[in-house]
């Protein structure tokens, strides 16, 4: 047995690439049918990718966010829906890793997530809150160590396919809308009645249907920290960074297709390039900018990670908001460039240069947490925050 070859096979990127190959095979069908990417998810489980973020003390691999972002980008190049499901799962896991280690129940649950490769979903959106997940209408009731919750969740991504769902609510019946907690409910502890169909322009395979959620579980499953802290210290950064990594994957694959188109055309015509070739250089510049944007965001996160004050500082929030805003806008420009380069071959479905799915999936980026809402938050913070204008700061 060649040990070096075995070791190379076990690297995170090799495992991610094998899962991505499966995701790529079914990407068009998942998109066309608007169905859950079950083959890709099975492949992720086979490669044991769902628990990589969990510390080794709890049975995982303790992968850094940067490594997880790389997996998101590899999957994103194959099937954006599969990649987004993986990213959203990892965002939920980050809340466990950052805020659940001191709680015995959440520690055991982490072992279960990695041991049984559980897929964790999220129910933070609610009818009537106007899209602001930092407010809840529903309230959790605790009685005799049992908690009960009913939530009109207008979006639960892959809700019907998750093995557990983390649900936000007001902390108790008299709590203010912003006084929230998050609770883990495992499958079997809740019912989901579908209220809204997920029939969308893109990201069709995430199956983010709306449900009436009703759950009952031991009260120990409520996170011990207020949701405000969880949102500020783990969700904000991991969401913006991992989403951006998925989006980078979509854009990178679009540029790859455009480059293949230009190369094939040049070969056929003895070196003469098609009219769109010059745009490939522009797209490559933008892709590099996008990559730099995400990498600098990841570095800022890894630097700040150990310091709760820094993670909840305005400067850090603004930096993460900027990563999201820039990535979500830039991918549309890049994929559009790729489409112009490939022309009708990019516009048509079913060619090696098809970009319709990429473009449709990419349009979700500006809307998942509306960019206008984020711009509003940033502009509020800029009223008071003093920017560090140094290049390295």
């Amino acid at each position, binding site marked *: 047995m060649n040990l070096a070859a075995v070791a190379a096979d076990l690297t995170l990127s090799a495992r991610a690439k094998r899962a991505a190959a499966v995701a790529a095979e079914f990407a068009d069908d998942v998109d066309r049918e608007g169905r859950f990417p079950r083959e890709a998810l099975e492949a992720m489980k086979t490669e044991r990718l769902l628990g990589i973020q969990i510390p080794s003390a709890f049975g995982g691999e303790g992968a850094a966010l940067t490594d997880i972002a790389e997996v998101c980008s590899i999957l994103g190049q194959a099937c954006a829906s599969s990649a987004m499901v993986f990213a959203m799962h990892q965002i939920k896991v980050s809340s466990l890793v950052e805020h659940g280690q001191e709680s015995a129940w959440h520690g055991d649950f982490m072992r279960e997530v990695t041991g049984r490769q559980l897929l964790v979903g999220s129910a933070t959106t609610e009818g009537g809150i106007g899209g602001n997940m930092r407010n809840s209408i529903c309230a959790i009731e605790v009685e005799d160590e049992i908690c009960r919750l009913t939530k009109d969740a207008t979006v639960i991504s892959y809700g019907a396919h998750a093995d557990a769902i983390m649900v936000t609510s007001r902390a108790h019946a008299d*709590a*203010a809308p*912003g006084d929230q907690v998050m609770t883990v409910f495992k499958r079997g502890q809740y019912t989901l009645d579908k209220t809204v169909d997920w029939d969308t322009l893109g990201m069709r395979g995430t199956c983010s249907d709306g449900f009436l959620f009703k759950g009952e579980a031991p009260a120990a499953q409520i996170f011990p920290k207020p949701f405000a802290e969880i949102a*500020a210290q783990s969700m904000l950064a991991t969401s913006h960074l991992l989403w951006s990594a998925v989006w980078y994957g979509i854009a990178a694959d679009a540029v790859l297709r455009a480059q293949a188109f230009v190369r094939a055309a040049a070969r056929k015509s003895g070196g003469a390039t098609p009219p769109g070739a010059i745009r490939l250089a522009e797209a490559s510049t933008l892709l590099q900018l996008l990559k730099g944007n995400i990498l600098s965001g990841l570095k800022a996160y890894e630097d700040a990670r150990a310091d709760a004050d820094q993670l*909840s*500082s305005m400067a850090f929030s603004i930096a993460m908001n900027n990563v999201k805003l820039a990535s979500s806008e830039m991918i549309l420009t890049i994929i559009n460039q790729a489409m112009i380069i490939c022309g009708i071959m990019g516009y048509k479905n079913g060619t090696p240069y098809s970009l319709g799915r990429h473009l449709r999936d990419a349009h979700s980026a500006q809307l998942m947490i509306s960019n206008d809402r984020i711009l509003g938050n940033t502009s509020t*913070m800029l009223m*008071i925050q*003093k920017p560090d204008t140094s290049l390295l700061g």
Partner: protein
Amino acid sequence: MNETIRALLAKVGGLPVPVTELEDGADLYAAGLSSFASVQLMLAIEEQFDIEFPDNLLNRKSFASISAIEATVTQILKANEAA
């Protein structure tokens, strides 16, 4: 200072409960202080005390309660005196 902070909080905090009912150590975010209102409060405090919050104090903790705000403002005023 406590009274001044409470007056500003009543004016710009937009809390659903009267400020007089809040303990000094009560969690203002749990009481309903929004992030927008917290910035309004920071601006009002800067104006009132003629100070500027340095970047390292612009976090949730510095504004988590009336006593936290008092401590933050005191710290800045002391630093300004020393300078």
